[in-house]
């Protein structure tokens, strides 16, 4: 058995089992193959140091291992690094390619063949190709690649029997011309041919493993490989007709602002209806109130009280107001889980249909101005679900600079769904001009903070460079599987943080620090924000759970203006303790403290500004003039943006692509 080059990925394989690795581009239907081969017996393990899951299962007496969908194997991102390591340790690779995208997909095929591992190609989506007027000469393709090629239609299980019969006929194929000699020279220094290839292509990780200098020949090798793939395509692909279907037209509409913006709003509205109304209302009503608070919590309290009284210190920590066994579990399973599942469901739907990269293309211009690029739309959307979840998702952004900006903006300005429910309820009673004031102030803070950060941080946003796959109807089983995996992962990662957060808060409560903070905040709340003393308690409760903070405001008798000031302050106030812990985990202590500290400052600065401006514009104090306050904020935003544009002109720029 080949020794495993996957550092940290523990896969128990029976002795003599061959490692069959599934590889392919994103969206080629790999998962259908995986499920077909492994049936019900699938294990999932997390790849160390990443948020990615690797599925593996048994096929007869052999192992089948899935890999993330990638366009090539280098070290461009986590997915590629993992796919690279698993492919290098394979005994044979089943490479799934889409017949409709041979030019793109065969690049990876050729790269895998160049590593010298035995390969068999499943030429999938033959039906799609036919519909698009593409004919592929399968025999010629097999001859040119030097490996077996089996035409399939995975969703209809066509070609699977033949694939199974031929699987172990996989063999090393025809390498890119001119590679053999160079690889042979390296082979005596580097144990395996696959690793030699990657060293030659300048993969820093593999080179470091063997203690040699990474090669500088990547581009040349890529170019030769590309030429070879183009030659192959010329010989095997025939286009009989070029039809532009409905999908292509719709795909165009999605990225043009004139039509794309309404389509995006429609999608977000559907999301709001499904998550904000149905899940946050009906589902959470059942899970949080009926099940967790109605059945689970009393049962736990009763059980624990047999051993320790609730009023004792350990009792408070376990089953008190913020108890580890009560609030934490209720919050995670009763409130967050349904919301997170809902958000991931939509995200997977957008991903699978090919809509996500189009949203990224549409909003790229907007996000570039606040230092992100189109990809930044994913964490921003998820932030409205749960800031903790969104902060974890920033790992997929292309540069560290963007992660910094995205995490800062998430922590500062984006209200999470737990909080949004309460905020929307309070805003609904106030009337449209107050709603406009709230939305505009938060939005202008987002723009100001993003523009400032983007200007002050060295460097420049990575440029967008993404593949727009053809639109297609997402397959429900795929979407559900993705949703399940992502949600499970998030909960697994977040649960200890929420527990730790509850523990810290309970300790604060027992030691009286919580009360001390409330008293500390009170003068500021009364004098600067013109709010009653008790509002300080609500703000501090917001550190525990954002919705606690917002809910604490509903019990106070506030004027409409006071309500708005309180809501703006609590939205901008520090993220909940679980989010803070995630930020500490993901970033340096210095940076996390900066984010946390500046949220305090920004929240009270902006909230106070609104309060003082309103007082200025309505001396009589009976009817508050909202419009001037809005205008002042708009002017302030424009001034900041203008100043930043001026600063940027004089700033040297270095370009980091991504």
């Amino acid at each position, binding site marked *: 058995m080949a020794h495993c080059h996957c550092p940290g990925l523990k896969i128990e394989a029976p002795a003599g089992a061959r490692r069959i690795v599934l590889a392919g581009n994103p969206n080629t239907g790999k998962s259908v193959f995986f499920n077909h081969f492994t049936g019900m017996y699938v294990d999932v393990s997390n790849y160390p140091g990443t948020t990615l899951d690797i599925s593996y299962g048994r096929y007869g007496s052999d192992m089948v291992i899935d890999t993330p969908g990638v366009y090539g194997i280098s070290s461009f991102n986590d997915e590629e690094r993992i796919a690279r390591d698993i492919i290098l340790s394979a005994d044979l690779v089943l490479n799934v390619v889409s017949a409709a995208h041979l*030019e793109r997909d065969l690049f990876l095929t050729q790269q895998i063949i160049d590593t010298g591992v035995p390969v068999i190609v499943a030429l999938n989506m033959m039906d799609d190709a036919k519909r698009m007027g593409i004919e592929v000469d399968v025999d010629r393709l097999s001859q040119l690649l030097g490996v077996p090629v089996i035409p399939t239609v995975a969703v209809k299980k066509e070609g699977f029997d033949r694939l199974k019969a031929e699987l172990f006929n996989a063999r090393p194929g025809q390498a890119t011309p001119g590679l053999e000699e160079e690889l042979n020279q390296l082979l005596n220094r580097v144990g395996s041919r696959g690793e030699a290839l990657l060293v030659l292509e300048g993969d820093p990780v593999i080179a470091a493993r063997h203690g040699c200098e990474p090669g500088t020949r990547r581009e040349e090798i*890529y170019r030769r490989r590309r030429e070879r793939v183009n030659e192959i395509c010329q010989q095997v692909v025939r286009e009989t007709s070029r039809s532009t279907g409905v999908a292509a037209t719709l795909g165009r509409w999605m990225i043009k*602002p004139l039509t794309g913006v309404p389509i995006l709003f429609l999608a977000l509205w559907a999301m709001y209806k499904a998550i904000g109304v149905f899940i946050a209302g009906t589902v959470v009503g059942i899970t949080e109130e009926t099940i967790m608070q109605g059945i689970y919590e009393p049962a736990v309290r009763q059980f624990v009280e047999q051993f320790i009284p609730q009023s004792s210190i350990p009792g408070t920590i376990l089953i008190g107001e913020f108890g580890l066994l009560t609030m934490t579990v209720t919050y995670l399973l009763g409130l967050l889980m349904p919301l997170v599942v809902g958000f991931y469901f939509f995200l997977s739907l957008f991903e699978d249909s090919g809509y996500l*990269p189009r949203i990224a293309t549409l909003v790229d211009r907007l996000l570039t101005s606040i230092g992100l690029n189109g990809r930044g739309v994913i964490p921003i959307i998820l932030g409205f679900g749960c800031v903790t979840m969104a902060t974890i998702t920033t790992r997929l952004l292309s540069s560290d600079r963007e992660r910094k900006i995205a995490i800062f903006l998430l922590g500062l300005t984006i209200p999470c769904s737990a909080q949004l429910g309460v905020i929307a309820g309070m805003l609904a009673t106030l009337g449209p001009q107050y709603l406009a004031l709230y939305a505009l102030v938060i939005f202008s803070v987002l723009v100001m903070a993003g523009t400032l950060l983007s200007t002050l941080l060295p460097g420049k946003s990575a440029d967008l460079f993404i*593949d727009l796959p053809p639109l297609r109807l997402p397959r429900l089983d795929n979407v559900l599987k993705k949703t399940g995996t992502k949600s499970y992962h998030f909960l697994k990662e977040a649960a200890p943080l929420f527990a730790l957060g509850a523990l810290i808060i309970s300790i604060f409560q027992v030691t009286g620090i919580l009360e001390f903070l409330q008293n500390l905040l009170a003068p500021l709340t009364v004098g600067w924000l013109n709010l009653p003393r008790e509002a300080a308690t609500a703000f501090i409760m917001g550190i525990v759970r954002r919705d606690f903070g917002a809910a604490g405001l509903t019990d106070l008798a506030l004027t409409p203006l006071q309500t708005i000031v309180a809501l703006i302050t609590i939205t901008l106030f520090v993220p909940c303790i679980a989010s803070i812990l995630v930020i500490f985990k993901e970033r340096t202590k210095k940076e996390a403290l900066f984010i946390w500290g500046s949220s305090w400052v920004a929240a009270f600065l902006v909230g106070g500004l609104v309060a003082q401006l309103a007082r200025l514009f309505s001396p009589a104090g009976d009817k508050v003039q909202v419009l001037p306050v809005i205008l002042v904020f708009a002017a302030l935003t424009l001034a900041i943006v203008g100043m930043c544009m001026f600063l940027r002109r004089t700033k040297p720029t270095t370009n980091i692509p991504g």
Partner: protein
Amino acid sequence: MTLDRMKRGQRCRILSIPSELIRAQALRFGIAEGEVVTCCEVIPAGPVVISKNRQEIAIGRGLARQIEVEGSF
């Protein structure tokens, strides 16, 4: 001439792509220096979408400004 100046529907030959990393990514998608591509969408002040055969790629405006092309085919 640079890619951001292209109009929708125009075809052009790519002369140079600025960074090695982007060149590598473009090669994977089948777009290399010397290839003829079609500009199929230009989002005002935003990304440029180019296609070769059926492969479509969205390229941010800043990057498109740095990609040298020669015009109409």
